[in-house]
Structure formats: C-alpha cells, structure tokens
C-alpha cells in the first residue's frame, strides 16, 4: 500500500511492482490522513472485510494535510498498527529527514530512484525482502 500525493509516482511505483512480478493488491491513497483512516478501519473490521491490513506501507514524506512524518507517528504510536512495516519512499535524501524518520520508527528509508529501471529493481528488492524473506507478526500481541 502506498501513500503519495503525486499521481505519476503512484503509477510508476505500481507499474514497477507489477514488472517485478508482484501479484497482490496494490492500494494507493493521496495523503497520510487517508492512510491512517484506512488502516484504522481495516484493523477494526478484521480480515474478512474489503479493508485488508497491508503487508507493507510505502510512505511519501511531503504530502498535503497529514504528511508522512505525522502518519508515521500515528502508525508507530498505535499499538494495533505499529507492527506493519513502513518504508519511506521520498525524493528527499537529507540527513535530517533520514534521522527523523528512523527516530520515528520507520523500517527503511529509500530515496526515490531517478530512473524506471532502478525503480523496478527497488520494487523487486522490497518484494523479496518484506513480502517473502522476513517473518512479521500478523497483528498486535494479545
């Protein structure tokens, strides 16, 4: 699942994931507010609803209304959501952004690649690591 206000980027990343062989559902929202709202609903309604808890969140930082920093804070401070891996995917490569988001509990920080081929490679790596290699908890500890 991806939160990014830039429609082109959403399209590129979706395409890149498809090209990398990703077969699952790729949801997009336009800002951090919509992301958190979706996650809350998915958590409340359970796995049988049409709101599924995503396996991975791709988070842009500069978004209108609720930006990436705030969305990250809300996700990582929520006991029910904090287990979902969050990868920042931003144009920024500034040290302060990197520091700040890792302090906020982000799982990885990636600067958006400049070319499409690199984007496909990135999608492949993310898929292989977060969706295939690592074991993650399926939900909050009870």
């Amino acid at each position, binding site marked *: 699942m991806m939160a990014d206000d830039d429609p*082109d980027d959403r399209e590129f990343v979706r*395409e890149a994931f498809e090209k990398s062989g990703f077969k699952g559902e790729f949801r997009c929202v336009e800002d951090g507010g919509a992301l958190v709202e979706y996650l809350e609903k998915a958590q409340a309604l359970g796995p049988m609803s049409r709101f599924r808890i995503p396996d991975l969140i791709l988070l842009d930082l500069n978004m209108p209304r609720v930006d990436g920093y705030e969305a990250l804070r809300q996700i990582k401070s929520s006991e029910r959501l904090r287990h979902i891996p969050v990868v920042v995917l931003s*144009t*920024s490569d500034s040290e*302060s952004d990197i520091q700040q988001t890792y302090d906020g509990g982000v799982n990885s920080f990636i600067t958006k690649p*400049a*070319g*499409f*081929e690199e*984007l496909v490679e990135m999608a492949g790596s993310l898929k292989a690591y977060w969706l295939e290699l690592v074991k993650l908890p399926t939900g909050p500890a009870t």
Partner: protein
Amino acid sequence: MDEMTRLSARVLELERLLREREENDSFRLVFNSAPYGMVVSDESGRIVMVNPRAEEMFGYSAGEFKRRRIEDLVPPALRSGHAGQRHHFHRAPSIRSMGAGRDLYACRRDGTEFPVEIALTPLPGENGMLVLSSIIDISRRKLGEEELVRYSKRLERSNAELESFASVASHDLQEPLRKIRMMGERLGAIAGESLDEQARDYLGRMIRAGDSMHRLIRDLLAFSRVTMRTEGFTPVDLSATARDALSALELLVEETGAIIVVDDLPEVEVDEAQMRQLFQNLIGNALKFRRAGVVPRVEVTGRVEDRAGDLVAIVEVKDNGIGFDERYSERIFLVFQRLHGKTEFEGTGIGLAICKKIVEHHDGRIHARSTPGEGAQFVVEVPVRRKPDSPAAPHSA
C-alpha cells in the same frame, strides 16, 4: 646676603618665570590646536578655559562658556548625578577616561545631544585643582559602527536566504526532472520498437540531457550544503583526515595504480568532515586529470608558517597530471567551470568550487599553480587556530 647672592637668586627667579611662561605657551599651543574639544573647569564646576574645537563642538563662544558650568554640557537627565561624580573626582584626582564601556553623550547649546569619549586630566593650579576634559565627538564613528552592524546583519540574512534558496530550488527542480526522465525511459521501453531510428536518437538524447541536468542539480545542492552542514571546529590532525579521505578513494587509487604520499600534516582547528571532503576532492581531482601512460603520483605536504604572530597551516597537494594553463587558475574554482570537453573527463565542474567554499569557511584561501603537461599544485592556507570572533557558523543542520 651679598650682592652676588641676591643677583644669582634674582637670575634663578627670572629663569623660573621664563620657563613657566614657555611651558604655559606650549600648553596654550597644544590646547588651541588640539583636534578634540578641551574644557578646563574648576572644583565648583565653573568653566575657566576652552579651546576653539570645544566652541565648535558645543556651539558656545568662549565668552558664553565662561558663564557656564560643566554640567551645562551634560544631557539634562544626567546633570544632577554629574555634580556628585565631579566631587568624587576632586577627592581622588587621576588621569582617567569616562564612561567605562557605557555610551556617553554630551549636550550642545541648542539642546541636541551627541556621542562622545572623554578623558579627564587633573591640573594642579595656584587656586586649587582644575580639571581638563578632552572630548572627542564620535558621532561619525558610531554611525559607521551602526552601519557596519546593519550591513553585516543584512549580509548574513541574504547569505542564509541564498543557501536555503539553492537547496529548495535544487530539491524542487529534481521533481519534474525525475518525471521527464522516467517518462522518457517508459516511452523508450514501450514504443522503442515502433519508433524509427531518428526518433529513438531524439529520445535517447532527451534522456541523456535529463541525466546531465540531474547531475548539475545534485552537485549544486551539494555545493549549497557545504556550509549548511557544519559540525563545529575542533583541533584535528590533518594527516589522519587526509588518510580518511584516501580510504574513500580506494577504488580510484587501485584502478589508476596511483602512488599517493601523505606527509606529516599539522594539527589545525577545523571542521573535520569538511576537511575530509576537501582532501577527497583535491586528491580525486589529481587522479582524474592524470596523464595517459604515466603512473599518477600525488604528494600531500604541510607546514606551519608564522605570519606576524598568526600561525597559518599550509597544505599542498601536488600531482604529475595533465596540469592546466595558469590563465585559468582563478576560473577553475568557479561553480560549473570546466576546462575540458565532457567526453574527455566526466563531472560537472563542482569539485574545486566546493573546495574553495570549504577553505573560505575556514577563513583561509586556496590557489593553484601548474605547468601544462607536467602537473598541478593546489595550495590551501588556513589559520591554525580559530579567531575568537570568528562566527561558529552553524546556520542549521
């Protein structure tokens, strides 16, 4: 007492009077031609003598002055306190300057006030102690100081604005550029087969232009960040810093088979990360502009020179590369200035500009010498110790 004794006593007396008169005359000469206002007052504060400069300064004539008291020259708000200070001075007279760090003001005849510096000198006289006040009008100097403070604040502000502008502009410029490149690549991938050769060529050139602009913006951003990211100045052994820089260049050194010699370099108070970058750029530059068929050799040497009490560290980076025409020895330090075609050597031409910015951030200077075809030598001079008034300079992290 005989005639002789009386006569010699009379001569002595005459000599004394003459000497006094001469002293008096030279006092008057100095008094009247002094470039500062001079006002002599007695113990009760009555003004007994003034020089022409004082008349000019305060707007009273010599005659008017003599009907005034010294308090009339003090701003009204401070007059009552002044009499007490005057008594205090007469009890323990000594040469002293007034104000002691405070701003002093004097009051003209028309009531306007002006900033002054005053020195007080006790003058023992026949009718008790007199005080000579020497007064300098510092309005001009004050104006100059204020102007300077205003100017440096303005400069600081505009520098900060410029830096944040460069950083924001570079970052925001990257956005649409990334799209252009990405769309170009997508277009090439999807329609590449159906495009004719010319169309593919145009597309390829468009993407390469985008790549080159991406590098330009990235380097501009790096340049604008040099002084924004400062970790403060600490005493650093530059030999160690140079070796750190070398480890970052390991691959390049290996590829080129270069011989790099780092001498003992002085310990200098610097921003270490910036100095590492400086060495990396200078040595990297030396390796990049190597001569074909010649094993690159780079020597890094250093010494400390005493320049009128200021210790200056001088570090030289010397290579045996292609060198450059000394006509361009200033130009090579400018942003995006290149002396070679893009096909000969890659790079945007930012490296030496960053070097210059780093050195200037250390209140130093950098210059280059070269003989084309024989090699180049870059000389960096930075003060060994930071001056206490040097701004620490961290704008923001």
